[in-house]
């Protein structure tokens, strides 16, 4: 197993009086698909928002390639090679596919100091990516708001690929998808990992997770309660860990 790309130590996040995360330690490795599991409100989305630079952690430290980092914005995280596909897909419905793929980091050329968009190149590159992903979108200039859930997911993945991300974080990428589109996205996740990307995946669909994940981490009430390699666990054990029926979790929660 390769060295950790990202190490999170003692991460806590509070929203006013609400503690959404406390004392989370986690390592994320290149070429590995790591699944985050847990009930609704367990803190999964909050955790990846911390990794993505969308929320500053209340406590704790993040190391990328051994160096401590602090992200003031998603842009900082992106600069460290972290791309995130949020649960509520952070796409702008009123903009086109290529505009979305490049939003915030457009290709431009400067004329008299004024940055002008290089639309043609952006469209070309996005067309290539879409082809690579085997995404069938008839009109790449249509506003993203008019696309299906699966198509939007491909746009979001396109965006991450285009960032040349070393870590791609996906929050429930298949939640809104039909069977065929789900298969496609799962295959894509494996492809990302084979390319040497680290992938963090949040999903409520445990059989999907067993299909693609190398390692699984279970969250409960803002804490990391278990970590398992796929080869060393069973579907039933993971379910028990999520629901809190597992003896390990019981012991842990009693101790607090």
């Amino acid at each position, binding site marked *: 197993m390769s060295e950790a790309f990202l190490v999170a130590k003692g991460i806590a996040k509070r929203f006013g009086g609400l503690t959404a995360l406390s004392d989370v330690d986690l390592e994320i490795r290149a070429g590995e698909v790591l699944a985050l599991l847990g009930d609704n409100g367990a803190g999964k989305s909050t955790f990846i928002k911390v990794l*993505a630079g*969308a929320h500053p952690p209340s406590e704790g430290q993040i190391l990328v390639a051994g160096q401590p980092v602090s992200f003031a*914005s*998603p*842009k900082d995280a*992106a600069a460290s090679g972290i791309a*995130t596909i*949020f649960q509520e897909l*952070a*796409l*702008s*419905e*009123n*903009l*086109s596919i290529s*505009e979305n793929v490049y*939003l*915030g*980091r*457009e290709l*431009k050329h400067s004329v008299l100091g*004024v*940055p*002008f*968009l290089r639309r043609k190149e952006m469209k070309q590159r996005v067309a290539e990516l879409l082809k690579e992903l085997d995404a069938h979108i008839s009109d790449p*200039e*249509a*506003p993203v*708001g*008019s696309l299906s859930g699966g198509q939007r997911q491909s746009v979001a993945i396109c965006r991450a690929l285009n960032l040349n991300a070393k870590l791609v974080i996906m929050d429930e990428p298949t939640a809104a998808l039909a069977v065929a589109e789900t298969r496609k996205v799962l295959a894509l996740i494996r492809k990302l990992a084979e390319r040497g990307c680290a992938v963090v995946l949040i999903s409520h669909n445990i059989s999907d997770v067993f299909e693609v994940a190398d390692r699984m981490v279970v969250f409960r009430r803002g804490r990391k309660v278990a970590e398992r390699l796929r080869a060393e666990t069973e579907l039933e054990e993971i379910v028990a860990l999520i629901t809190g029926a597992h003896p390990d979790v019981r012991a842990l929660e009693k101790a607090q």
Partner: protein
Amino acid sequence: MHRLTQATSLLTGRELILLAACVVITIAFASVSPVFATPENAATIMRNSVELLLIGLGMTLLLAMGGIDVSIGVVMGLSAIAVGRALGANLDPALAAAIGPLTGALLGLVTAAVVVLGRIPAIVGTLGLLGVYRTAIFVVLGGQWLSGLPTGLTEMLGTSLVGVPLSFWVIALAYLAVWLALRRTPFGLHLLAIGNSEEKARLAGISVTKVRFAAFLISGMLAGLAATFYVATYRNVEMTTGSTLALDAIAAVVLGGTSILGGRCSLIGTVLGVMLLRILQNGLLLIGVPSLWQTVVTGGLLIAVLSFEALAGRLSFAKLGWASR
């Protein structure tokens, strides 16, 4: 469906309707008033549209990003005082002309500071500023009009360049600059993304604060430029200068197809909206409707367009938590 961010055809349906409406009311007024369809009156309408057009361009940017500025007319008023004072002090007309956009830009920064840094909804923040600026105008003018200002600025803007007055070139350049910024630079894309959802724009890595500051700055600058034109034309500034322009501009821009909730805009639409409004106001005056009714017409039109869009499902105020109880 959403309007694409790039015009694929020359005019959208909305813009064609506006154009048709301009033609229809022109024919209607011409058939009633003998004065309406004269070249002199056409020139008057054009002349009366200048300030509104410039302010409308800025308002289009603001609405596109989900902002607004109800103090913008008074910003023009204050800038006009600055230009007027400069002229009155016999400053070189070229310098006096520059003082307009400069003052406007400065006031635009103040607006941005209040709204963006103060984290207040733009409509509330600029309403507060409207109150402040109104009194500021009163205090600065001391109850007296600026009038009988020197003609230097008027002459300068009237200078013919390739057979067309300089003022035309300045306005054309302003339009072109705003169009380029909106459709050809990252700034325009970011503006529309913020108008769609500020949170998503931020997640995409856009520096929302910077973009919003820039938009208010540009809008203020355009209002200041409008002030320069105003002073050049009328050579006086009164207490009420610009007081109806914010309403006019919002109405014209919304008529033009820009969403009052942001994320969708049309500059051509704004031009057509300005034309429609000014033709309507001019024609009504000529057929004997008292000028008092002008703001009624503008306000009525604004309300009509917005409810039409809301009823057609193109606007959902619930998105902002703006319940209309």
